[in-house]
């Protein structure tokens, strides 16, 4: 608990002077707020005196002076209210800005492993809902907590100073009101629970209807299905109506209690004035105090739930922000990689339970093109993940040019690799910007490629890819992904071939481009296409995390059963 709140304090700390100023102003505001009804009462008292005692030479100037003082107080309190809320609001907006920024930084410094275990929807709701929740609730707390507390105490003092009996009567009614509210809430709770059940029923109905949507459509079952849903919907209506009705009673009860105290004050006050124990202005002030008292106590009682909600959100965000970052102990920053790669006794597991790579030993010579083949889940992609330092925690050694990759700086290492992933990633931006990929400059390499391949026939650079990426075919996405790699400088190529079907024309271009990517470079291809496999210098056959064969196509097809099987299945 303290840890999470401390985290919040870290974010608030830069604004401590502002907060102190706001607090001081809040105190002034509260005092003025509390005192103003009492001042106004002075005028009323004077007027009543005139009425009852029949003072004949009442001076309007006295009243005017009081009113001017009141007006000044009102202006001052409004100004303070505005300035205060503005300062607090600025702080909270800045705070959410900083929180978002830190979350974004965190997203990019976490290891890939984190994303295997967590859905992005959850992370995004941190940025959206939790940050909003913190800033808006914190704003409420910071801007009204101090003034509410002071006003609450101040009003109580004023009320008691006017009339002890009237104050006690007012205060007695509060527990009565609380008691009734608790009974109602108890009753409502029952319906809320039922409502929850109905909603979860509804959820499973929707899920099952969506999954069987096609069957419903082709079997003409729409009406029946809607009828089923309507039953649940009707239940929800009935239950929702009951729970809403019971909770709607709370409001009238609150106003009943308020009105009753008003009446009692009127009668008791009237009695006291007649008995000369009180002045009319005091009753008027007292009535104003009751109203403010109700408002502030309501706000203060909602404060605890506000605090809780801030706390819950802070905790959410904190769990995320305290995830362990990707670590990099590598300090060696080679200018160029020659491309000799070696795996020595490598074992690796994603979940610390099942090894996906087992005793992997291989040497890849600089400039060679090797293809890795194997069934889905055999660990092909994992090899590239380890090589690019996307995952650590393997045992054994991986060496590039004789250096352990743990000693090579991660950023430098990755910058020396040209990688084309199996699933092409595109963003909601133009095709050209997707190729340049977050670079502001256009690469001049693209022009050279353009001349070589007549790319404009295949792809429209200005096309704006939409959010769902569905106005661009998978083939085009692959082309973008390959371009993105080609226009950079790199020494080693990792190519994870896509398996999706694309039309032959695009396929041909992709073939040409992949050959271009691999030109004169050490290349590791996670292969799915027969032609790539046949053109490789040699082939690594993997099965269940193990290397079960190395060699050329012609050798393997005769000697290696696993390879034979994979080969037959892939065509």
């Amino acid at each position, binding site marked *: 608990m303290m840890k999470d709140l401390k985290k919040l304090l870290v974010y608030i700390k830069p604004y401590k002077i502002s907060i102190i100023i706001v607090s001081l102003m809040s105190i002034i505001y509260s005092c003025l707020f509390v005192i103003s009804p009492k001042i106004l009462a002075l005028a009323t008292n004077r007027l009543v005196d005139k009425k009852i005692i029949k003072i004949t030479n009442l001076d309007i100037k006295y009243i005017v002076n009081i009113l001017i003082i009141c007006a000044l107080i*009102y202006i001052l309190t409004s100004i303070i209210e*505005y300035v205060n809320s503005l300062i607090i609001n600025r702080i909270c907006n800045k705070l959410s800005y900083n929180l978002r920024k830190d979350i974004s930084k965190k997203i990019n410094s976490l290891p890939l492993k984190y994303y295997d275990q967590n859905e992005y929807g959850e992370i995004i709701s941190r940025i959206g809902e939790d940050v909003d929740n913190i800033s808006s609730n914190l704003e409420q707390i910071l801007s009204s907590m101090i003034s509410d507390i002071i006003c609450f105490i101040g009003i109580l003092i004023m009320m008691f100073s006017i009339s002890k009996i009237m104050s006690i009567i007012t205060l007695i009614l509060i527990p009565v009101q609380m008691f009734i509210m608790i009974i109602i809430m108890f009753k409502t709770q029952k319906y809320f629970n039922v409502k929850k059940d109905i909603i979860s029923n509804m959820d499973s109905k929707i899920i099952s209807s969506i999954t069987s949507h096609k069957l419903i459509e082709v079997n003409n079952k729409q009406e029946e299905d809607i009828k089923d849903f309507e039953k649940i919907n009707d239940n929800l209506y009935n239950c929702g109506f009951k729970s809403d009705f019971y909770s709607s009673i709370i409001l009238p009860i609150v106003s009943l209690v308020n009105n009753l105290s008003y009446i009692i004050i009127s009668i008791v006050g009237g009695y006291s004035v007649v008995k000369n124990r009180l002045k009319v202005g005091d009753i008027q002030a007292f009535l104003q105090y009751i109203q403010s008292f109700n408002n502030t106590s309501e706000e203060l009682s909602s404060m605890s739930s506000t605090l809780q909600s801030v706390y819950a959100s802070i905790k959410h965000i904190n769990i995320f922000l305290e995830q362990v970052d990707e670590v990099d102990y590598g300090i060696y920053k080679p200018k160029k990689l020659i491309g000799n790669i070696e795996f020595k006794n490598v074992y690796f597991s994603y979940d610390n339970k099942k090894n996906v790579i087992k005793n992997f030993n291989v040497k890849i010579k600089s400039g060679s093109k090797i293809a890795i083949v194997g069934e889905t889940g055999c660990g092909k992609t994992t090899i590239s993940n380890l090589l690019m330092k996307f995952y650590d925690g393997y045992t054994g050694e991986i060496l590039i040019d004789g250096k352990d990759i743990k000693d090579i700086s991660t950023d430098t290492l990755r910058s020396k690799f040209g990688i084309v992933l199996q699933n092409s990633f595109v963003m909601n931006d133009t095709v050209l910007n997707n190729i340049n990929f977050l670079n502001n400059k256009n690469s001049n390499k693209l022009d050279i490629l353009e001349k070589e391949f007549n790319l404009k026939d295949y792809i429209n650079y200005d096309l704006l890819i939409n959010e769902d990426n569905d106005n661009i075919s998978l083939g085009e996405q692959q082309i973008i992904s390959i371009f993105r790699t080609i226009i950079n400088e790199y020494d080693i190529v990792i190519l994870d071939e896509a398996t999706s079907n694309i039309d032959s024309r695009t396929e041909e271009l992709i073939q040409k481009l992949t050959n271009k990517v691999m030109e004169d470079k050490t290349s590791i291809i996670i292969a799915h296409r027969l032609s790539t496999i046949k053109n490789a210098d040699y082939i690594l056959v993997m099965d269940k995390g193990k290397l079960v064969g190395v060699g050329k196509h012609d050798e393997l097809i005769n000697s290696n059963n696993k390879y034979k099987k994979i080969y037959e299945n892939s065509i």
Partner: protein
Amino acid sequence: MKYKLTKYIKNNIKYITLITILLLIVTYCDLKLPDYMAKIIDIGIVNKDLEYIYKIGGYMIIYVLIGLCANIISGYFSSILSNKISHDIRYDLYNKVINLDNNLLTTSSSSLINRLTIDVNEVNSGLFIILRIIIMAPIIALFASIKILNTNKKMAYILLISILIMSFIIIILFKKVLPKLKKVKILLDKLNLVSKENIKGIKTIKAFNKQKEIINKFNITNKSILNTNNYINKIMLLLSPLITLIINLTTVIIIYIASKEIINDSFNVGTMVAYIEYMMQVLTAFLMFSLLFVIIPKVSVANKRIKEIMNIDNNKENNGKLKLSNNIVIEYKNVCFSYDKHKQDLKNINFKINNNDKIGIIGSFASGKTTLLNTLLKINNITDGKILINNKDIDEYDIKNLRKNISLSPQENIIFSGTIKSNIKYYNKNLKNDELIKICKISKLDTFVDLNNIDKYKVEYEGKNLSGGEIKRLSIARTLAKKAQIYIFDDSTSSIDYKNSNKIIDNIIKYLNDKIVIIVSQRISNIKKLDKIIVMDNGKIDCIGNHEYLLKNSKIYKQIYDSQKI
């Protein structure tokens, strides 16, 4: 018909009127209290008449009780209203979803659930508060003005002027802020998109060392959100202090006027005290307007999400009146289909199915097999060419009758929670028991179900307690149970072992010997006995013929055959 939120308000206008009337009564009673208070001061206190004070107190209690009743009744109707509106929106939305063409349903079920529950509630409760604020504030202001108008015109004018000024301020602030609120909403969506892309493409971003750049991209939007929010709040936060100030200053002016009159003996102190009370009421009512700034954007976001679904237009459905007869001949003539303009998913499909034909369809992943079947089911409406059934265009047939005569076992595993039996009888509730047993044997359900005790086999949602092969068999049985003219098995044997799958297919062919049967499979052994096998490749028909013919004439078929021959 386009979806509009106002429709639901209009439909329930009688409740809204009723609630408004009840709220009028509540407000009237509330404002009666300061009136009586004035009487206590002006008559009771001035004349030192305790008796009178008590009597007035009694009146006050009566009004409070009337107010209480009206308030509770209005709560009753409000609960009906709000639940009715959400019920109706939910109903319409669900109706829309279920009647949507299958290929237009791209929203995930979790998102649909959110729209049907959380968003509908958000819209409804927000709408409710908005209505209440919009109704209540003017009522209170109106009543207070009328009351003051009855006793002193000058004061009433001053109150009216200040109400006008307040309304003016509220309108201006809203006008300034609302577009900015929309802008923030768009920016927030953009921010979400950037982080979504950031996470989706994290591997690519890390591979290209673009972490800094993407954080910068994020922060550009983040910064504009900060700036826009600061601007909005600079304006929005004015509302509460300004309205408070105006009301307070109006009170001061009213007291000043009252004092002058009181000195001239033409006005009573009690009335003045009552006026101060009125002013407090008007203040609270107007301050509620600031709530709108919070609620309206929330409602509009949720409403937009509902609208997105409601406004999807179903494809135009050509629906005829013809009914399917017993002898069916289907003919595809140059049929083309595409989901979108960028790509043709079916190209120039030509083939013919005669009555009682048993057809096999084979082809690689995404070669257009399911797309082809969907055109016969009219899930996909073809974009070019013609589908003829008994020489009449498919569009001339009644779509319901057409689908009634087709029994489909879809590629997706769809199992309903219930029992094995309830699943089989899902589309044919009248299925006789001996027929049911027969079907179970045909689909080889008897390998894991004791047919004598078939009632006791429970199936969990999505068939979680069944294996892949068992699910497929159950789906085949369900398809056989439906009485139809055309039976389609889309990849129905994929998780069943070779031996059993071949047997099941043999059984099906025998059982349905007088029906049209279409079997889609990735396995040659499943379909090689069929007379007519269609080989699909890249949305086109590569070749049609029997096994021997295809081995000779289709390279693709031969390749598949070679790869599966062990």
